[in-house]
């Protein structure tokens, strides 16, 4: 079964440094999501793409976070500068279309020291 690929699996960075995460969705999936999951909580949506366009980034802290999906396929989420409170699991998900079930990757666990 096709999977959503994410890298790196783990990332440790010092505060004030820049960090980037990469996601490759299932082939043909037009909708891509980035979620943040703080330990002990449910995932929270950061940004949603439809093809290369941002559909919803209302919860993305735009002063430090950015996301792009230039060719409408893979996507990169960047944090600059990282803060201690950014330590979390960052999950990427994709779906065939916006109303379809989401398929999640295994996530990138970020630790900011």
């Amino acid at each position, binding site marked *: 079964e096709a999977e959503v690929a994410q890298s790196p699996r783990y990332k440790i960075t010092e505060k004030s440094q820049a960090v980037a995460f990469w996601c490759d969705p299932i082939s043909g999936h037009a909708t891509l999501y980035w979620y943040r999951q703080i330990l002990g*909580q*449910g*995932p929270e949506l950061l940004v*949603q793409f439809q093809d290369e366009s941002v559909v919803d980034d209302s919860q993305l802290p735009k002063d430090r976070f950015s996301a792009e999906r230039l060719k409408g396929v893979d996507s990169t989420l960047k944090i600059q500068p990282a803060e201690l409170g950014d330590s979390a699991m960052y999950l990427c998900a994709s779906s065939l279309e916006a109303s379809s*079930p*989401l398929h999640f990757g295994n996530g990138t666990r970020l630790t900011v020291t």
Partner: protein
Amino acid sequence: AQSVTQLDSHVSVSEGTPVLLRCNYSSSYSPSLFWYVQHPNKGLQLLLKYTSAATLVKGINGFEAEFKKSETSFHLTKPSAHMSDAAEYFCVVSVGQAGTALIFGKGTTLSVSS
């Protein structure tokens, strides 16, 4: 506004006994509801989905959930727990409009003892 409330943060059962994970939802629209499971250090996996068809929804691994509009509930059940069911379970709501993503509950940790 759409939201879900998972009524128990932690549920413990013995292997072979029934599982009940409770979820109430709030939605201004006819909701789509989901249950996802997350095993340690793994991504989330869809267990089942309700989208206004049959109110009793069957999912993978023997799980099922019943949509009760009068109670605004979507509880997850399984007749007999297995050790491999131990995981974090999330109740999720979607408004169902195109371009609207999922809103997750805080999760219920299911522990299964032998």
